[in-house]
């Protein structure tokens, strides 16, 4: 199902998948995503973006913008940011 969360600026599709992979890795419990959850995933993606924006002190919009993407593309530690 297409990811329908709103984009605040024109973002490349590749970056959207980078963002999704990043948020799955660092802002949620690990596990295989069942297809049925993809619809819900849209809402949860926005929620994860909020969490990540809050953690890094970015403007919390729940939308994928360039400054949020820039942080996602920085080399980092592989541990989740939500201590789970």
């Amino acid at each position: 199902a297409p990811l329908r969360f709103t984009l605040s600026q024109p973002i490349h599709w590749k970056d959207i998948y980078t963002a999704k992979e990043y948020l799955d890795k660092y802002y949620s419990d690990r596990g295989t995503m069942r297809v049925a959850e993809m619809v819900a995933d849209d809402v949860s993606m926005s929620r994860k973006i909020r969490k990540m924006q809050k953690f890094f002190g970015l403007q919390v919009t729940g939308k994928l913008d360039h400054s949020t993407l820039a942080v996602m593309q920085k080399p980092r530690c592989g541990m989740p940011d939500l201590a789970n």
Partner: protein
Amino acid sequence: YHVFPGEPKWQRSSLTYRITKYTSSLSTQDVDRAVDLGLKAWSDAAPLNFIKTTQGEADIMISFESGDHGDSYPFDGPRGTLAHAFAPGEGLGGDTHFDNAERWTTGKNGFNLFTVAAHEFGHALGLGHSSDPSALMYPTYRYQHPIGFQLPTDDVKGIQALYGTKGIGKEKPMAPQQPANKPDQCDPNLSFDAVTVLGNELLFFKERSFWRRQAPLTNIGPSPIASSFPQLMSNVDAAYEVAEQGTAYFFKGPHYWATRGLQMQGHPRTIYDFGFPRHVQKIDAAVHLKNSRKTLFFVGDDYYSYDETKREMEDDYPKSIDDEFTGVEGNIDAAVEVNGFIYFFSGPKAYKYDTEKEDVVNIVKSSSWIGC
């Protein structure tokens, strides 16, 4: 700073670590040094000791891995994820993995191994990611210079919240510790952690430094313990030499090392080899008596006598130090036999004890032994 849910942390202050797989992008010496400095960043700020082992299971198993390496957190090739570590615990707990696909460096061009290792060891000790951009535990990579590195305040508070401050157990967080510089040689309050004869020298240990004194007292200065005893690094609890065996023993927490001169003989072993009861977790001081071929171990208010010939602890011990060594005041930090006299070091004082008179015959400043 953040800790993990349930606040997992190590219940011991002495932790073993072992590097099981190295990377082709750095020499083993460079990796060893970066790892040692990465651990030192934390042991400078909290009462933690790290003991390197080279075989068997260690608390913190360190390795360079590629892609899917069996812990359900596969690496992703160059950049992206650089490394990860697991919170304290059995088995995988504490283990630290570096992505072998990265360009590891001891400098700035690539990813500085010390920087990433120090961060990961924060996880291995129980810290999660910090949202303070100036913190070492901030999730994204930011180069840190290894030499003279000082743990940022946020990280000091985090590690001290888990393990207390250095020297006084689990108390309120303090301001960041000054990096352990060389002790002030002629501080009138100077005390020693351990003293031993080694060949024709006397060695005096204090925190990260030690002095080597030949018989005629010349002007001597402190050297880093790590330069001659890399496994010991700092804070030696006790030491003694059995000259007729040509062997010396160095004690740290529940572990000891045997050496021939400055050469370590094998891996650290546990003090229970000597026959100590399990409640003894560390030795305060040790002195070998040449004539009787016995070694005295001092633990708190008691002392034990170990028969070097039979290689066993003597019966009817421990005994009270006060009962046997009258005149020596305070806890014994270190002890050594020179020319038939036992010298007890307690805080800034050194007591010269005459075993025939069974009494203290002289008291001097501890620092006078290193020329002050």
